[in-house]
């Protein structure tokens, strides 16, 4: 993009990296920081805590990052509001879980399939994309908000279907003991707790946190490269044009239905991809892991991170994941120990109507999440790291708005 036009000066490798200019560019700087953190994370957390727990948490957070990147294509790039994104996630996860476990043995088929993970990753992706296309085709011709409503309904139907069709999916009992991916070889070392670097032949993932961590990082890198290129392509510019003004975009010769349909199914395909990964890494797929709350959480990640900006969305996903799975979960114990430390130990005990500080803090979680959402939106409606183009548009809008307000003569 920003190739220097001047003649290349001879210099050290350090100088040629243009590090100084790159740090000034926010997105590159964020990518750099993320890359460093990702590289040192397994080893440093292993030495700091003595277990791979934080690595497995990071691997789980990776699922959400993938989802957020995918939803960003739909919401951020093309400006289509998708309130049922979890449905595609569920489709991807069930696609893998059904064909890589003993589940179908007890179904009317009476035959269990054990297809390889690497194949099902792409099958899940295509099935989710196809579902997106089937849902999007009749509805994308309608005005913007109707898509939100249709996807909302779809997101409610799909988990309910997986729950109701229990002779196929096991219903409320969920699908467990899902096959683990395997590779011809794998390398292990001190970052995973081994004493020395060694090569493991015929490696089976079997819930190995470091292996899943590496897998999800690779998947995210592929997704980021794909999405960045899409964003800069003709299609990406068409999406932006539609987002800004659909009528004008149509007048410029963009086929709005096809373009929106592509955004919708490409976004869905990322969700299917993430779903297959989720099924394998979690080993259990149950209908209640794909409820409306999941769709909302991914949407919140995208909006809080900064719609349309890939780095913002990644940071948003990590931040929200951290808040939901660390800050709010550990709040009761933290509050209790804090109260004990400052000499207010008596409020941790149950007393009449007071259920004790830990229980009260547990009950507060819902409320706090709501407060965080409202507060963040009021303070930064454009998100943490909005895309540069959007930022300019918003500023422009604000200026126009102020001018029109200033022009108005007071009525009374």
């Amino acid at each position: 993009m920003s190739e220097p036009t001047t003649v290349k000066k001879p210099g050290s490798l350090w100088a040629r990296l243009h590090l100084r200019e790159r740090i000034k560019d926010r997105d590159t700087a964020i990518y750099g920081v993320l890359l460093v953190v990702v590289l040192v994370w397994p080893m440093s957390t292993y030495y700091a805590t003595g277990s791979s727990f934080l690595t497995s948490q990071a691997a789980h957070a990776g699922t959400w990052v993938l989802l957020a990147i995918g939803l960003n294509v739909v919401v951020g790039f093309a400006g289509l509001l998708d309130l049922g994104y979890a449905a595609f996630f569920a489709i991807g996860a069930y696609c893998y879980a059904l064909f890589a476990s003993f589940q179908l043995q007890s179904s009317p088929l009476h035959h269990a399939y054990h297809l390889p993970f690497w194949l099902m990753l792409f099958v899940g992706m295509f099935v989710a994309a196809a579902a997106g296309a089937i849902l999007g085709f009749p509805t994308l011709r309608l005005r913007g908000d109707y898509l939100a409503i249709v996807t909302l309904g779809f997101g409610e139907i799909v988990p309910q279907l997986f729950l109701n069709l229990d002779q196929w999916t096991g219903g409320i009992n969920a699908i467990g003991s899902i096959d683990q991916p395997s590779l011809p070889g794998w390398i292990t070392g001190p970052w995973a707790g081994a004493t020395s670097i060694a090569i493991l032949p015929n490696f089976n993932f079997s819930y190995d946190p470091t292996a899943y961590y590496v897998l999800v990082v690779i998947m995210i890198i592929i997704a980021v490269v794909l999405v960045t290129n899409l964003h800069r392509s003709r299609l990406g510019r068409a999406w932006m044009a539609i987002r800004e003004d659909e009528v004008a975009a149509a007048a410029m010769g963009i086929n709005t239905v096809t373009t929106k349909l592509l955004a919708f199914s490409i976004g869905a395909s990322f969700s299917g991809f993430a779903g297959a990964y989720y099924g394998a890494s979690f080993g259990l797929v149950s209908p209640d892991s794909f409820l409306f709350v999941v769709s909302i959480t991914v949407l919140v990640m995208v909006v809080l991170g900064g719609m349309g900006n890939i780095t913002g969305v990644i940071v948003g996903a990590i931040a929200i994941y951290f808040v939901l799975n660390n800050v709010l979960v550990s709040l009761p114990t933290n509050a209790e120990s804090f109260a004990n430390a400052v000499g207010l130990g008596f409020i941790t005990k149950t007393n009449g109507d007071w259920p004790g500080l830990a229980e009260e803090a547990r009950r507060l979680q819902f409320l706090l999440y709501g407060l965080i959402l409202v507060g963040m939106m009021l303070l930064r409606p454009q998100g943490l790291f909005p895309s540069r183009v959007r930022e300019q548009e918003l500023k422009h809008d604000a200026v126009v708005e102020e001018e029109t307000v200033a022009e108005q003569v007071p009525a009374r």
Partner: protein
Amino acid sequence: MSVGDLGFFLIVAIALVLLAGEAVAHPSQFAQVLVFGLADGAIYALVALGYTMVYGIIELINFAHGDVFTLGAYVGATIMAFFAGASEDSFLVANLIALLITFPVVMLIMGAVNITIERVAYRPLRNAPRLAPLITAIGMSFLLEGIMFLWHGPATVHVPDLLPHGAGFQTTIGGVFISFKDVFVVIAAAILVTLLAIFINGSKLGKAMRATAQDRDASQLMGININRTIAATFFIGAVLAGAGGMIWGLYFNTITYNLGFRTGLVAFTSAVFGGIGNIPGAALGGMVIGLTAAFSDNYIGSKWTQVVIFGILIGVLVFRPTGLLGMRVPEK
């Protein structure tokens, strides 16, 4: 008539024929389900009105509305607990007085709550990107649910059974069981909807609301105070939702903190079904969805009801996006 309309009417006709077959085969069972459906539908209609009014005026899916409905039931239960005492199992004048006091108080409190929500969470974002108020609406929904969770915990809450009930207030006509409660729910909802219609069509503020929904800038130029009109819309929506919550509580006698989520989605479906932004449409849509839910519970199985309702939602939007009575929201 377009192909879409044709498909819509065809599906409706098939459903009606199937139901008519049931009605002829088992008339008393059919009538019983009809009674349940009407009572449910009346409550959905009250909640749907709030969705449709807010969407009509600021194009926001107010996710917090379903929780305002539940909060109405919670506040109502608390106030009624003062009056109830041991007089739950018979008809007493005291109960009637308690209801006459509780209803307006709950409705006013809910109106105030919703105005506060609008002032805090939606008004500052009126010119922000469209998704921002949607996220705050979801946040407000979590916040209200959090407050109710904090208040009574995850258990169900008992609502005092103040409506006249028992042997003297129920009857069986031709094998159909009808209690006073069923009649009360439908009549109360009908009165409220009628009052709303008179207000919207007759009063100056109602006229301002219709004008603002049609074109905000033009109505501002005509001297309408936009902020006050939008606040009034939220107030009226919440008054109806609060009444709906009270009625739900009196009808079913148990509530939980997350009741509003599912009810809200169903009520929103009703609003879309009737044609979003259309007030008679929302009332009609609520009744139709309530009846559909009752029929589906009975003839298909209650675990499929949700699939049926949201399937209808998608079907309506695909075949007839303007809803039953046509939407009144101009494309902006």
